[in-house]
């Protein structure tokens, strides 16, 4: 859960409609009104990260105190717990594990957001408040949870992000062993083995091999 205190206000006369705010908003809360050629903020989606204010080259954005809807959270108790556990298991995360070091939002909250209709990383942010802090480190987990829930990449066409669920599990075994032989100090094989054990798969796809 996050508590939102402010919402951005855009000064139309100062705004040059460069759309930088739209591009960097983690929750897709700022959009262009084409007919008016102006930017509008959806206060429901805004997570109060204040990144738009920081990025605006014209200083056209001011954070205004919110008057209502301070808290933002996903209620997971009303959802199918086994479905949540299954999604988390696929990613190798415990449901109650905080996957964002800034907001402490958990894997089950993110999975819950998807079960409640989130289709993009921006939807997950808008529903949970994740990425409100640094906005960077937890991103890969959002991609992974969307993938684990079976949300198709083509449904993410509006995202400004590169879909990037990069995982050590993506490295083919032969290449992994080659890298490990050349650079044993990085313990790549050992760490990959650990990740695979967390997901219940072995180094060659079966059992929990110790490599």
């Amino acid at each position, binding site marked *: 859960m996050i508590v939102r205190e402010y919402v951005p206000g855009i000064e139309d006369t100062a705004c040059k409609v460069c759309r930088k705010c739209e591009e960097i908003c983690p929750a897709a809360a700022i959009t262009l009104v084409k007919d008016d050629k102006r930017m509008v903020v959806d206060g429901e989606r805004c997570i109060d990260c204040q990144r738009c204010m920081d990025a605006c080259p014209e200083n056209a954005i001011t954070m205004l105190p919110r008057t209502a809807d301070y808290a933002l959270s996903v209620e997971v108790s009303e959802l199918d717990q086994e479905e949540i556990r299954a999604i988390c298991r696929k990613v190798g995360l415990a449901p109650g594990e905080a996957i964002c070091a800034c907001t402490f939002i958990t894997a089950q909250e993110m999975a819950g957001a998807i079960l409640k209709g989130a289709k993009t990383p921006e939807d997950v942010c808008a529903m949970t408040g994740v990425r409100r802090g640094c906005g960077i480190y937890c991103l890969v987990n959002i991609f992974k949870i969307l993938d684990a829930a079976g949300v198709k990449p083509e449904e993410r066409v509006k995202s400004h992000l590169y879909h990037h669920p990069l995982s050590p599990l993506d490295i083919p075994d032969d290449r992994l062993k080659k890298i490990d032989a050349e650079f044993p100090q*990085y313990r790549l094989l050992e*760490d990959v083995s*650990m990740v695979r054990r967390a997901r219940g798969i072995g180094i060659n796809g079966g059992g929990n091999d110790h490599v």
Partner: protein
Amino acid sequence: MYEQAIQPRPLMQSVYQSPPRKRAASYPGFVSLAVGSLFPEISENIYCYGDDYSAIRQSTYQTLENIDMDMIKPDHRVHLLASEHGFSILGGRPYCEMLGAIRDVIRERTGCENIYLGVAGYRGFRESEEVIEAFQLDELFDGKLFEFGPYDKGVAIETEVGTLYGIKKAYDADWIVHSYYDDPREMYFHRFLGRSFKAFIMSYARLESRSAYHYSYKNRSCNFLPVAIYRSPFVQERYTFSCMMRMSPAGILTIDADNDLFALDRRITRGQLERFGKIQQLFESIDACIAVIDGGRWA
């Protein structure tokens, strides 16, 4: 044994931090303790404090004598890639001096004038701009500089661990120079693994790849991601050499450079373990210690 506390340089003005009302060093009773008085073997440095940066320039010139720059032709475009934390090490001026000296040596040796400084930001959109203004980098580089950060347009870099995303603007040059520092900053030992490569993932890469480094790989294996970027054909086609400000608990040890970043990294890792390991042991042996951080960029 105890000297009056060395006064730190004034803090850079920033929208991201409120300056402390008073610097710790100005409180009565604060003293400076020379590291060499505790560990005589850790007393060597070319700079620790003060306004004389000539030793930094001299050391940069000296180390670059052995560097191959033949690949740079007069009509080429060269990017000196600088990372933000360097501008907070010992007040930031030493790093600026090293960067200026690298540019001068390249110019003198190759006849190339198209040498641009790229100033990487961590995550705030105004960080690089603030650094450029605070250190008058625009003047130092005759306007030949640019800012870049994790939200800028990316470029796919194919590596042996998969596709990673660099910042297009940083790599849009014939050649790049990795202009970095080895200040450990993070004193846990897994961050000593491939320390010299870290900027390839945490300065010159998009936010998605930075996220994979911190949250998808484990603490040791994640350090291979910047190595994989460095080894990629995309980077090797542009890479010239690395020049780094090597740190010691006693100040700046030297400026070191190499065309082979692996060779430089081995020297750096050994030096860090020898010198910073003892400081870590020292702090572990103190029963009660209050650390005052009154000027950290992200404190």
